[in-house]
Structures are given as C-alpha cells and as structure tokens.
C-alpha cells in the first residue's frame, strides 16, 4: 500500500466509509495517546497534584533530553534509517561542556556553538558515508558511535567536570508559569509543523516511503541523507547541552542510555521503522510515556526495577497494535 494509492482508494470507496481508513492510518498515534491518558489517569489517581502546571513542568524537564534525542531519531526513522551514533554525540557533548564551560557567558556561548556545530558536522558525515560508500546506516552509525564514545572517554575518562550554576538554573527559568523545557516542547512542535512542509522535509519523507521513486522525481538522495543525519547529530548535541543542565556534570558513558529509548519513543508514538510514516507529536507522547512509567512505578511503591519491564511490555504492545492496524489498512486497500 503506497501513499499514492490512498486518495484513489478513498474516492472509489463509498462516501462516509473513508473515515475508517483515516482512523486506521492514525491508529498507532491514537494508541499512544490512549496509553498516555491511561498512565496519567492511574498516576493521577494514586498521587495528588498530578493535574497541575508544576507537574507538567517537572515531567517535561525530566523528559526533555529524551525528547530532543528522539526528535533527531524521528527524522532519521522517517527517512527509513537509524542513528545509533547519537549515544556517542550526547556523551561527547556533555564532556566537552563539563570541561570547557567557565563562568563567563561569552565562553559558554562559544562552546555551545562548537558543540552544536560538531553535532551537525559529524551527523552530516554519517549521511555522507552512508550515501557515498552505499553503507548500511546501522553499521555506519554503530562505528561512529564507538568513535565518538571513545573520543568522549579520552576527554574525560570518568564522570565529572562541572558547568556554571547559572547554566544549571536554565531548566527552572519560568515565563508565564511555564518553565523553559515546556517552552522547548512547544518550540519542537512549531519546528515540526514548519519543517515537515519544507522542501527538504517533504524530500526526507518521500525518500523514506520509496527511495527509488523519490530519486526518479529528482530528489538528491545524498543531500537528503546529509540533511537527515546532520539534523540528528544537531539534536543529539542539543540533548547533550540540555542534559548538562540536569546533571551539572559530564559523563563519557551516559549517551548510550538514550540510543534505544529514542527509537522506542518514536515507535511507541507510531513512527514506522520502515520509513515515511509518523509524526513528531507521536514521538513526544512516546517520550512522555517512557518517562511517566518511572513516576508510576515510584508512586505504586514497587521496586524501581520494574520500570524497564513495564517499558518493554509497552513497547511490544504498541508495535503489535500498529502492525495489526497496518494489516487491517492493507486488507482494506486490497
């Protein structure tokens, strides 16, 4: 079932029946919304004060690193690839920040630009390697993950370093009752609304649905890969910078904790691993789901070790739901 066939099918089917097709198309996203509502509902019934701005501020602050990493990963998944190197980039970003930042805002601004630039350039290199050498994204980014992680360990062998106090205060800065992470969340959604309709955004999604027909329509696959992985690196660098506001230090190993969760958040949110299908809003909901499971386990007074079990089960359930929906959608077209 290609996207191009859908409108024809909708025109041919009886009027009034196309809402079912549209519903099936969005089923994975709706399942994610339902899951989040359920988790928030249970959480809210066990804990008082869940439905407040404070809670929103706290949870968004906790989820923002994953959200930034998963935003980059979502772009890569829409292209039909995967980026494992973000783990290395996040580690590298935190150790550079923790060893180079001083109290002087000008120095910090300089290094922020260096870290973001590094993420963009290294990501673009990933894309270039994948295109020019016709290599698999999984292997290329596995290799660059190892290289970046190694570089991070050479800069700072163990957790440590520090960032200035005013930098750590960033996440609790408020405007109109909302903290900066909540504003970042809104900014991500605005970015997405703009980006997915840009020429390059459309090209990325088209290449993810069908590389050959995208190429035949005049899309430069090399350029798409460079932009896709470049953005992923940039968002990973952003995640690293945000993470230092939470931890106040650098860690050469912390990045690996975000590689697979970033994929999981996107998949829970209904982004297809086969490219071309998905929406950043789903990914952000997926990131909230994964973060709130931690809170839920905490208020239920069970061992926190149940958290990975719960997130694994949720991941499986949501991927099964989307595969069932996809099968049903395919059955309708046939």
């Amino acid at each position, binding site marked *: 079932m290609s996207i191009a066939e859908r409108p024809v099918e909708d025109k041919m089917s009886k009027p009034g029946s196309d809402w079912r097709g549209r519903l099936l198309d969005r089923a994975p996203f709706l399942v994610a919304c339902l899951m989040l509502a359920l988790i928030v509902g249970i959480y809210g019934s066990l804990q008082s004060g869940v439905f407040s701005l404070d809670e929103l501020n706290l949870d968004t602050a906790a989820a923002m690193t994953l959200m930034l990493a998963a935003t980059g990963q979502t772009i890569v998944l829409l292209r039909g690839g995967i980026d494992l190197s973000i783990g290395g980039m996040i580690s590298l970003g935190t150790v550079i920040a923790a060893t180079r930042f001083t109290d002087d805002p000008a120095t910090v601004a300089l290094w922020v630009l260096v870290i973001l630039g590094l993420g963009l350039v290294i990501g673009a290199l990933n894309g270039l*390697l994948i295109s020019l050498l016709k*290599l698999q994204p999984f292997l290329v980014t596995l290799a660059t993950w190892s290289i970046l*992680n*190694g570089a991070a360990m050479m800069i700072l062998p163990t957790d440590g370093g520090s960032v200035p106090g005013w930098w750590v205060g960033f996440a609790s800065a408020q405007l109109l009752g909302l903290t900066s992470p909540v504003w970042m969340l809104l900014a991500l959604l605005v970015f997405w609304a703009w980006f997915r309709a840009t020429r390059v955004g459309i090209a990325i999604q088209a290449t993810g649905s069908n590389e050959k027909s995208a190429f035949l329509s005049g899309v430069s696959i090399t350029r798409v890969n460079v932009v896709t992985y470049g953005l992923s690196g940039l968002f990973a660098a952003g995640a690293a910078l945000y993470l230092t506001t939470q931890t106040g230090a650098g860690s050469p190993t912390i990045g690996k904790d975000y590689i697979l969760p970033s994929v999981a958040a996107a998949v829970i949110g209904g982004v297809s691993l086969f490219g071309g299908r998905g929406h950043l809003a789903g990914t952000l909901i997926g990131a909230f789901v994964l973060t709130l499971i931690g809170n839920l386990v905490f208020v239920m007074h069970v061992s926190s070790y*149940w958290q990975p079990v719960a997130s694994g*089960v949720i991941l499986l359930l949501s991927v099964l739901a989307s595969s069932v929906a996809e099968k049903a959608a395919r059955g309708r077209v046939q």
Partner: protein
Amino acid sequence: MSAFLARNRLIVLAYAGMVVLLLVTALFSPGFLSVSNMRSTVVLAAFVGIVALGQTLVIIGGGIDLSVPWVLNSAAIVMALLCGGQDMPLLWVMPLLLAGGGLIGLVNGIGVAHFGVPPIIMTLATNVILQGLILVLTGGSPTPSAPALIQFLSVGRIAGFPVIALIWIALTAAATLLLSKAAFGRHLYALGTSATVAEFSGVPTARTTILTYVISGLTAAFAGMLLTGYSGQAYLGMGDAYLFTSIAAVAIGGASILGGSGHYLGTVAGAMVLTILTGLLPALNLSSGALLVVYGAVILITVSIGSETFAGLGTRMRRG
C-alpha cells in the same frame, strides 16, 4: 581454489587482517606471540565468538539480535543463584538455562516471523524486560561464586589446550556444517537474500527465522555461563559489552547487515581481530577510549571494503 577465494573474498580478507594485526602487535610487544599470551587471547576471543555464533545466523537471515546482553547476563546470574557454588546442580541447571535462552529466542523469533515486529524492536523489548526481571530478582545485590565445574570449562586446560578453545572449535565445526551442508543453511541464505523469493520457492521462512533466534538465545546463554566461570562470579552488566562486539565481529567477518551473505568462519576472524586489538592498545600505551575509536575505525574500514562501491571498483580494476 581461486573460485573459493572469489566467493569468500571478505572472509579471506578478515583472516589476512587478523594475521597482519598479529604481526604488528608482535612488533610493538615482543611477548605477544608467546604461547601463554596467545592462549589467553583465544580464551577471550572465544566468549565473543560464541555469542557471535547466534548473531551471525540471525544477521545472515536478515535480522538482528539486541537481546544478547541480558540473555547472557540472566543465564549467568540464575546459574550462580541456583548452583550456590556447588557442582552437582549444574547437571540440571545448565540444560535448564540453555532451554531458557532458547525460549527467549523462540519468543523473539515468533514476534519477528509471525507478528511482523521489526527485529530491532522485538529483541530490544525482550532485552529490557529480561534486564528488569533480573534486577527485580536480585535486588541489585551480588550473587554466589561460580561452581568449580563451570570454571574448568572456561579456564581449565586439557593437554595444554584451553577447554573453552576446544568448545569453540567444536561449535565452529557445527556452525560450518549447518551453514554449508545442511538444508537449514541453504534456506537461511535464501531467506536473507530475499524473504519474498524464498517464501515462494517453498523455503520454510518462518521456521528458519525462528530457529536463528533460538540458536542465538542458546549461544548467548551458554556464553553467559562460561563467562561466569571465567570471572569467578556473575555480576549485573556483564553482558553489555557483547552487544557491540558480537555485531562488530559479524561485520568485520564480512557478513552484510542486510542478510544473505557471510559465514561463521568470517565471524571467528572478526572475534579474533577485536580481541587482538584489545591486546595491542596497552602495548601502545593507549587508553580504553582510544580502543573504542580504533574499534569504530576498523568497522568503518572493513564494511567499506565490503560495500558495493569498493566491490565495483575491484571489478573495474580487474577488467581494466
């Protein structure tokens, strides 16, 4: 012979790389080629090699197994808990845990083959679920020491040969037979090359897929028990390094991550290369960070050599 070389160019290259690496290492640290040092290198490579056996089959079939770390770790922890340092329980604990590893593989395989779950997601989910369950089970506390019998299997020697090296040789022979002589091998390459074509040619694709994951579960669980013997006890996180090394060994050994090509003989060379590199870096006075950089560079170089671009270049050069 030349036909063999042409067909298995990448495997031959992996072995050539291994020999060059051995010689270079010997140059920098003269004691490296000594019997005792080679013995310990082979023992360390065997753990990577055994985990990578299942990974090789899964990757040839076009999948990937990310559940390796915690299948390995679970087998190690549960073995130590059930045996309590005694030898006798091993007689039933070992078969039980091999079956357990196979069962996890079965779940992975059924999810991938029958429910159409992408392998990355399926095996990632079983990995985190196992991790959580083991953490709940142990409460994060250390486990009793390894039974003497399992220590014999991983560090003992028979007539000067490390027992684990003999086990590895036997497994290599079995895997080679399976891939080169058995119907399963033919089915597996057909499946990895094109699942659709294989399905229409009458290959039992679902059964073949499931079997690769079952074998991967078995080898990971087996490696976990042996590794417990090697380190003297089981600990949390002992499997983490094997996710990267098992995939890297397969890639360096010349298999395509897209499936349909590669052989376990190549993976054996890949496991050796990774382990020799670990030995080379202290000789050069390099840190563990530098080791990761070198690992990444080696993977990039080897997969580049195997890529279409370079293969095309080679063909053009031979013609021209």
